[in-house]
């Protein structure tokens, strides 16, 4: 504990002393860490961040619901439902195999190009849809891994009690599967929180785009630093929460962490 504290202080002091000694530090300080610019733009950026929050807020639950459906579709055993299984497999392959940004371009520019009436031509809408499609493919794989990690004997026990396969899935398999994958899901949602900014590439003015605008107006890079601070204010607590959940899951299942 003491050793950790001392070594941390040494490193922090070293960085604080050494970095400003670099020859270009004055210039960097002026263009990235200008205090007056920071306070000027911060409110605008925070306002723009509200859009990121909204996109996240409606995308995340949609992703979870869609991903669960896809994960369950991949697990169906009845031969009659094979097409469903095939569809789910192709879906995950396609959307996991294409870069998220490309999906956003294709759907965000492509669908509004069909000339749909308002509000169905909004890039914001189709950008979010693209995010949902891409992320639900990832999240579906996480759910599938969770479902497969529940031992077959749990299914056998439930079925032997006369429970249907649907009751078994919803009362026995899914609750255990979801509990196991929550930490992994948190990681995906931290990525999602950042990738929401990609939607700005097809138009909507959210935090990243607003920072770009402010940079152009002020001729200073500080708005980017301010944007980073805002993102971190959200993602760091989420990361800590994910770590906490993971540790709790480990304790609950009796597994011990390896140092």
């Amino acid at each position: 504990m003491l050793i950790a504290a001392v070594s941390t202080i040494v490193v922090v002091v070293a960085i604080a002393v050494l970095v400003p000694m670099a020859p270009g530090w004055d210039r960097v300080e002026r263009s990235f860490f200008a205090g007056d610019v920071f306070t000027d733009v911060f409110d605008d950026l925070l306002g723009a961040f509200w859009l990121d929050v909204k996109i996240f807020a409606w995308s995340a639950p949609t992703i979870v619901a869609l991903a669960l459906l896809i994960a369950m579709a991949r697990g169906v055993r009845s031969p009659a439902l094979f097409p469903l299984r095939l569809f789910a497999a192709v879906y995950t392959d396609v959307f996991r195999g294409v870069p998220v940004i490309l999906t956003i371009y294709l759907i965000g520019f492509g669908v509004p190009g069909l000339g749909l009436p308002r509000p169905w031509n909004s890039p914001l809408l189709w950008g979010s849809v693209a995010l949902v499609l891409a992320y639900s493919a990832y999240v579906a794989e996480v759910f599938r891994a969770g479902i497969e990690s529940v031992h077959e004997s749990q299914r056998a026990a439930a079925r032997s009690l006369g429970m249907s396969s649907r009751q078994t899935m919803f009362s026995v398999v899914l609750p255990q599967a979801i509990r196991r994958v929550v930490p992994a899901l948190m990681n995906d949602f931290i990525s999602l929180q950042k990738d929401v900014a990609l939607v700005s590439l097809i138009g909507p003015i959210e935090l990243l785009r607003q920072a770009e605008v402010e940079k152009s107006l002020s001729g200073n890079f500080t708005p980017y630093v301010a944007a980073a601070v805002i993102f971190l204010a959200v993602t760091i607590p989420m990361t800590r929460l994910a770590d906490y959940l993971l540790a709790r899951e480990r304790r609950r299942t009796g597994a011990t962490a390896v140092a």
Partner: protein
Amino acid sequence: MAVEALAKLELQAVTKAFGDRTVLAGLDLSVRDGEVVCLIGASGSGKSTLLRCVNLLEPIDDGAIFLDDVDISVPGRDPDPIRQRIGMVFQQFNLFPHRSVLANVTMAPRKVRRRARPEAEAEARELLARFGLADKADDYPDQLSGGQQQRAAIVRSLAMRPEVMLLDEITSALDPELVGEVLDVVRELKQEGMTMLIATHEMRFAREIADQVAFLHEGQLLEHGTPDEVFDAPRHERTQRFLHRVTST
């Protein structure tokens, strides 16, 4: 027909293979109402597979299985109503780890039988109390000893009021000192007249509790009779060798 009418559970020429490996080779077995039949035999002789087939967890390849003279092994028949009448207890307990003991016991009555929660819980607590688990109702399975978990698993099956119980080596995963408390539960079930088909390695227990003992060898019923007949005067040489091996250690 007179003989068949007495059978609660009847297996006729049941055949089951996994790939090339034949596990059950035309097996006949009859269990009368209220009778306790113990299946004995080496590991891999087909005891567990037989129980899984009766509970329709595995489809059979040939033959037929009758419950109250109704063929339950017809492909395409909805297995759920049949399984509700046949309880099964597993070697590894298979309790649901994410739910409390009480919730484990009430899950099937509530979901399948649509029982109201207070009613199902009152009944579950009563059953748990009868088997010495009253104070464990709100614990989670991993907080219980192996013996307690297995008793809870038996209670979970009983909560569905089954007509037949299938017990698949229910003491094999237990520490020796915990075996007794689980066997006591089985003794009590017999007293109540429960029809049971029991796969077991506990020869002394089989001898004590069974009305009929059936010796399985390579998926066939090689010998069956009363415990005295099978244990004291085994007719088949393979039975003799098996009994010699398990009782001499």
